[in-house]
């Protein structure tokens, strides 16, 4: 197979509607689309074309091997049209124009949602592959046929390589969700979901595992939380809610109609349901409303060694661990130990000996205002603030990041 000039950049848009001529110099039809096949650890391979056949006035496919030369003015075939083999389409094949061109895609490196203005091809080991996507305004200019004006040369082309692209929409079903996407910081992932249109963000989040969903969920803005959850079946919703910490479940319940709450509450485990119901009593803008139960607490009789082992065991369910609260047998808060203290202490020392005592005035009641919480955290330089009930029992903790989310909601 030959190409007119191997050095020029090849773009999908150059070939759309280009006439196809067979070996007998008969104009067979015009090109409509390219069919690409995903490959493991490689760029998708172009396996065929879709064309409009003039003689039958129908849409047909053709295997790529039949093509002699792919040119911008005409596409020539190796044989006469009668001998051309139709393409056997496989389930994961996708069409470049139909499924990707002009659609929204996710740029995994820039973690943003952009549009596929053009698609770039290239030869790898003498076979045509999809190298990447042109997301630049230059791509739009090229497609508008304005490329010949020097004026637009200030617009620089910008490509995203195929392995840094996540397709969405219809094409998502045909390809896999990139591991790179799932590995993005949950906040970036949430940002991507918020920028996609609701249907696509719904489809994309559907393709994540429950753990990723629950991490992303915590970063979404409230209105998006509600919208995205609408896309789940009741059964899926249950799984996801079981992965969410109690305070996030409460946030979700606050977003939905009162009548629907009961149904969701009854699907939770007994323990979680109790916590959630308790949390629901606190107003949204109080310490109780934003506190979490996602922290570690250990008994004051434990040793440093025991505590460290406990952390190793349960660390996977926690977003982050910076400290451990120490409580007595009645559940009263005694003090706090930082990770640093734990690591640098003698392993068999009792935890009570190494912890820092917490005074009552360094804690809050659940009905304390956010202002009060922020004041205390600032005054004592705290990353978290313990929330105690009227019997001094430890209920939860307000984390500095959750507080910031409430104080600066638009961030």
């Amino acid at each position, binding site marked *: 197979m030959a190409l007119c000039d191997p050095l020029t950049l090849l773009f999908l848009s150059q070939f759309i509607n280009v006439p196809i001529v067979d070996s007998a110099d008969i104009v067979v039809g015009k090109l409509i689309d390219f069919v690409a096949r995903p490959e493991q650890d490689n760029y998708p391979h172009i396996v065929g074309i879709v064309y409009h056949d003039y003689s039958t006035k129908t849409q047909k496919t053709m295997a790529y091997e039949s093509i002699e030369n792919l040119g911008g003015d005409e596409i020539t075939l190796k044989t006469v049209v009668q001998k051309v083999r139709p393409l056997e389409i496989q389930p994961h094949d996708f069409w470049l124009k139909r499924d990707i*061109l*002009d*659609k*929204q895609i996710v740029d995994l490196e820039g973690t*943003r949602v*952009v*549009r*596929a*203005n053009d698609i770039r091809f290239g030869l790898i080991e003498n076979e045509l592959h999809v190298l990447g996507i042109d*997301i630049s*305004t230059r791509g*739009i200019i090229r*497609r*508008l046929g304005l490329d010949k004006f020097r004026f637009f040369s200030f617009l620089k082309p910008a490509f995203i390589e195929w392995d840094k692209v996540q397709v969405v929409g219809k094409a998502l079903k045909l390809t896999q969700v990139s591991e790179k996407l799932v590995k993005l910081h949950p906040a970036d992932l949430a940002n991507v979901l918020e*920028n996609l*249109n*609701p*249907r696509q963000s719904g489809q994309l989040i559907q393709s994540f595992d429950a753990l990723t969903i629950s991490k992303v969920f915590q970063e979404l803005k409230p*209105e*998006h939380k*509600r*919208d995205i959850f*609408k896309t789940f079946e009741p059964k899926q919703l249950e799984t996801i809610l079981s992965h969410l910490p109690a305070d996030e479940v409460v946030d979700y319940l606050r977003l939905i109609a009162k009548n629907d709450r009961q149904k969701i509450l009854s699907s939770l485990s007994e323990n979680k349901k109790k916590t959630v119901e308790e949390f629901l009593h606190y107003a949204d803008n109080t310490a109780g409303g934003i506190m979490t139960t996602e922290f570690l607490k250990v008994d004051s009789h434990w040793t440093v060694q025991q505590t460290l082992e406990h952390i190793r065991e349960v660390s996977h369910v926690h977003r982050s661990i910076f400290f451990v609260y120490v409580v007595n047998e009645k559940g009263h808060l005694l003090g706090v130990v930082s990770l640093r203290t734990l690591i640098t202490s003698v392993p068999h020392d009792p935890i009570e000996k190494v912890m820092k005592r917490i005074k009552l005035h360094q804690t809050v009641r659940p009905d304390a205002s956010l202002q009060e919480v922020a004041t205390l955290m600032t005054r004592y330089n705290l990353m978290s603030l313990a929330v105690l009930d009227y019997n001094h029992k430890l209920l939860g903790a307000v984390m500095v990041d959750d507080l910031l989310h409430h104080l600066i909601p*638009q*961030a």
Partner: protein
Amino acid sequence: MTQPWTKRWMLKIMFFLGVIGPGIITALANNDAGGISTYSIVGAHFGTQMLWVLFGVTISLAMTQEMGMRIGLVTRMGLGGVIREYFGVRWVAFAMFTMLITNLGTIASEFSGIAASFEIFGISKYIVVPLAALIVWFILYKGSFKVTQKIFLAFSALLAVYIINGFVIKPDFGAAIRDLVTPHIQWTPSFLVAMIALIGTTITPWGQFFIQSYVVDKGLDVSHYKSERAEAYLGSFLASFVAFFIILSTAFTLYKHGIDIHDAKDAALALRPLVGNFAQFLFAFGLFCASMLGAFILPVATAYVICEAFGWEYGFNTTWKNGKFFYSLILLSIIVPSLVVLIPGISLIQVMLHAQNVNGMLLPVILIFVMKIINDKSIMGEYTNKPVGNIIAWLTIIGIISATLVLIVTSLLGIS
């Protein structure tokens, strides 16, 4: 702990405004500077003769708004996005260019409205317009768009005074209703300009984009179709209901006494029977709020739609570097219209009227896209148009195109 009564009262208003949907918001936003001035001129210059156009336009508005809403519910994309994905770059560039032109015109008419409302008190537009442009930019960039929008929306509901006024002037309702269903037409440019403007201010290109984006942003889908349809119809009726009374108010005061509208002061006269000397103040305030509302919404809406269609980054949380197109488009659509309004000697009323005229002439472009989309089974599935909707929409499109052609011919022949 009790909250001060003002705060509770504000919360109640916010809540109310929070639950009203796209149909009603579009209806309220419809009666902007261009709407008020066009309806006033239609009534003052032609009496009730053009009410039949309003009647027809109400039906088309209900149909087109319902279609835009339906496309939004089914595709869950903005109109620009749908055109891009199904028609490609060239068509979307064409549609975006059309929308940009009509929106710039409409924004110019909003700034004219702001200038005109202050002119009533003798304050120069050279002070008011730059100041308003700065305020718009500042609030968009630094302030809360949503809260501001709601405040101006609430105040622009003041235009309901026209309804009361419409009864106070004791108009000949019988004649008005007769004109509502009896077509009159004059083959003169001034009549045709006013007629196209009347259509163009009621069914607007931006209104089509707006209602569709609105249902998408609210996260609504086809399960909300029935309630959204009812609201789109109700909203269209409400919009025209106010328009009807604005026309009545000017027809039975200004037209009756042969007073033409040359500036906002003249238009304010129509409210005198209800509020006496207070009319000018009330008109100015209502016009100001309605214009400010449009001046806020339109630059952002324009930038959002274009950026979505071309895949540029948008939103006020992007940096200047990443969002350069977004910010440039907003600045462009604030600065260019303001400069137009600042041209010395330009008639503010004429800017408002002719912007609506341009809206009307270019409306078919957008409506044809809407028609192509809504009748495409591969996009709309089972939600394609019924024949009735198609007939009314095509009649609207053909009506506007023929009115535009006749206008061009009569203008060329010098008939006035």
